[in-house]
């Protein structure tokens, strides 16, 4: 295998984050919740590792961030998919039309 386990995991995590954000802008916690629900807690990762992933993608301009008000009126950082991120997500989904992220997790 050319791709190492951490790279695979990181790629998978990125994909899941992009997938989560494809439904609309979310803050970090909401992204964590979405992944938690979507994968039925299969993904046993530290929630914190989500943030370096988010920031890295922000640097790569796949997503962009903006500070806003959360549901309970707290200051929260919202992430939104950019056009580049959307393209990346589509490429990740693969030619067979299957959602490779979730496929891979099963």
């Amino acid at each position, binding site marked *: 295998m050319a791709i190492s386990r951490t790279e695979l995991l990181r790629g998978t995590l990125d994909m899941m984050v992009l997938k989560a954000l494809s439904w609309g802008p979310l803050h970090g916690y909401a992204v964590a919740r979405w992944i938690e629900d979507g994968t039925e807690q299969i993904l046993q990762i530290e*929630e914190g590792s989500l943030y370096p992933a988010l920031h890295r993608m922000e640097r790569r301009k796949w997503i962009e961030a903006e500070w806003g008000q959360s549901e309970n009126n707290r200051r929260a950082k919202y992430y939104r998919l950019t056009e580049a991120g959307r393209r990346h997500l589509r490429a990740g989904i693969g030619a067979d039309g299957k959602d490779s992220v979730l496929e891979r997790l099963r």
Partner: protein
Amino acid sequence: MKVLGKILPQRQLEQDIEDELAFHIEARTCRNEAGGMTPATARDEALRRFGDVEGIRESCREIGMERLRAQRRAELMDQIKRDIGYAIRTMLRRPGFAATAAFILALGIGGTTAIFSVVDGILLRPLALHQPERLVVLWGIETGLRSGSSAASYPDFVDIEESNTVFEEMAFWSSPTMAVTGPEGEPINVEGSRISHDLFPTLGVAPAIGRGFLPEEDREGAEPVLILGHGFWTSRFGRDMGVLGSTVAVDGVQRTVVGIMPPGFDMLFGKQIWIPGTPTHATDSRGQHRIIALGRLKPGVSIEAAEAEMRAIAARLETEYPEFNTNRSARLEPLHETVIGDVRPALLVLLGAVGVVLLIVCANVANLMLARGMTRGKEVAVRTALGASRPRLVRQFLTESAVLAVIGGALGVGIAFLGIDLLLATIPGDIPRIAEVAVDGRVLGFALLTTIVTGLLFGLIPALHGSKLDLHTALKEGSRTTSQGSSRTRVRQTLVVAEMALAVMLVAGAGLFVNSFLRLQRVDPGFNSERVLVVPISLPGSRYSADEWPKVIGFYDQLMERVASLPGVESVSAAYRHPLDGGWETSFQLLGVYERPQGERPEARIRPVTTEYFRTVGIPLIEGRSFTDRDDEHVPNVVIINQAFARAFFPDESPVGHILERWAWWPFQTGQFEIVGVVGDVKMDGVASTTPWAMYYPHRQMPFSEMQLLVRTAGDPIALAGAVRAEVWTLDSDLPLENIRSLEQIRADSVAPERFQTLLLGLFATLAIILAATGIYGVLSYAVAQRTGEIGIRISMGAETADVLRLVVGQGLRLTLAGVAVGLVGAFLSTRMISSLLFDVSPSDPLTFGAVAGTLVLVALAACTIPALRASQVDPVHALRAE
């Protein structure tokens, strides 16, 4: 501002990360509490699920910092792009200014690049050989009566090769001219080299096609072989591969071509063909110095250490062979120096001169930019008011300079291309390595570097000045005499003075060269060069061997008789060699006057001539008699010496009647020659050199086979070249005839390098004068425009035209005189560096310096008149209304 600008975004970044992570943990805690946990457990559980908070914070911070840096870079690039756009728009608004500045810059950068390419190709670039820095040439030197370098003798070479410890390999060559004859073309003389078989391996080169010489091919009786230079292969054989293995006649011997050298190698040594051949102790005695020895230093051995060992060996040989080696020592020279000869100082002077032109160009363009900067005060004020910081403005101004410099540099490279072609087409003589001069990556790199340095040089002062401005004074409408303005005027005046000073230095240098060249032209060479045709002839040893001297004498007698009968010929003679070719020396002693054993005898030039020689070239007989046709092999041998010889050995008596003794080369010679006459001195080593001692022998008693036919004509000598050539070929159709020139042409060619150098320096000096004059003109024009109001008042108060003229011209004159004064001091200090290149002129020649100062003052005054006249025509009413 600067400090905050750097720290603020970073602190913001850290705060954001802190908030974001805290939000997550709190949200999770809330959810845990809602799920029924106690507040403390809920928080612990949230932290546990989150993981290593500290580590995550750190990686987020690193990613964020990277993002900030990228952002800052992008902003800077963006700003530079905008600055460049702005600079181009600003320039397009004043296209005349931009075009002038770019053109001046292009001249400076182009000229410098062109000269650099020549310097690089010849002086700087290592020779295209294997580790060329370890290759040295071994010269024999005379330490006695007269000093000088000479070739080495073969026995000495063998001794040195065997006993030295400093060389890895040694080899040698000697350089006779060889005649190539054969069905493939006209007979032709080529520069050839007789080399040891190991010369090419020692140099670290090999033939591109075929093979090098084998050790056994060095020896007597071996199959004669030949290696061709790429250039000769091309010109003579049209790059025919079939020539390999075929035979070519060289000096009458059929030689098999075994190899062809790679292109460029022949240019390095100026050779076209190579033949093998090691002399033997029988053919080459210790007294015959005709091989040039080459050595490859062992790694780590310095040339000084090697030379010390050579001197020690030479000292030993001196005691072992006193009859040959008395007063002989050795000297080592890097091969590169041997190849390029003495062109280094002249090239460096040219590079220095063009560098000075470039400095003047910088001062000039800086001045133009400053002048423009003064009219941009308001623009700067507005930008400052809108929040542009000083560094920001400096960068903006520098960007404009850089754009200008890049345009100038690009045009300059174009000028350099043209300039190099022009240089190569007009450069005279055989400049070594000239074929290696080309515009390549190195030269373009130099042009780029020059452009950058130039841009900084001329851009920095205007940038610092243009950006320094306080809003208050600048926004005051129409106020021209601000303190700001006057400080900038001072800078501009300083620049003009500097330009003037540099121009004076350059013009003084060029003036010295012109002066030196004129003196060179006026030197009496000791003969009359008008209307004389020179035809070099070399009878090949294969058909005219040394023991067949009557055949040689007969050939020249017949030839002279035939040529004398041609219409338009006044007199004919033959000589070894024409009056401006130094030839070579042999030893002698004077019976009863100066007798010494072999090895300590003095040497003088040996010059066999025919009877009519002195009359044909106009060398006066001072004392005694000239040669007659009766001075032949059957009568006692005679010799005529020149005045320098007579002065040295017969200061108080007549030399006529004394006996000169030397080796007998022909069986009919006794080795004793009676001095029968004294002739005038001839500058045979070139008009700039001292006259060597000369011994003229009648050709019938010293029948050299290589002679030069000298024909004095009634009209243009070149017109007779064809007829003379036909006569030669009637007698012997296999003789190469090349390089037929008039003596006048030879004399002009002998000073061609000096002429060329003087011309080029004169060109640079002219450019410097023009630039300095425009500098003065620019400053005065601005001063007049600035003082229009004041001048208006003066005129309305009754000032005469003459007063106004005096006012303006006076200001210009003050700047000029300051510049000339500084320049003369600079010239005085710097021209001594070129003293070795000057002939008969002191490097601080007062006449030249005076003329240079006078010329520049006159030119500067001329540049002052236009602004002065404009000032005198100021309409007072108009001027005052404007104020």
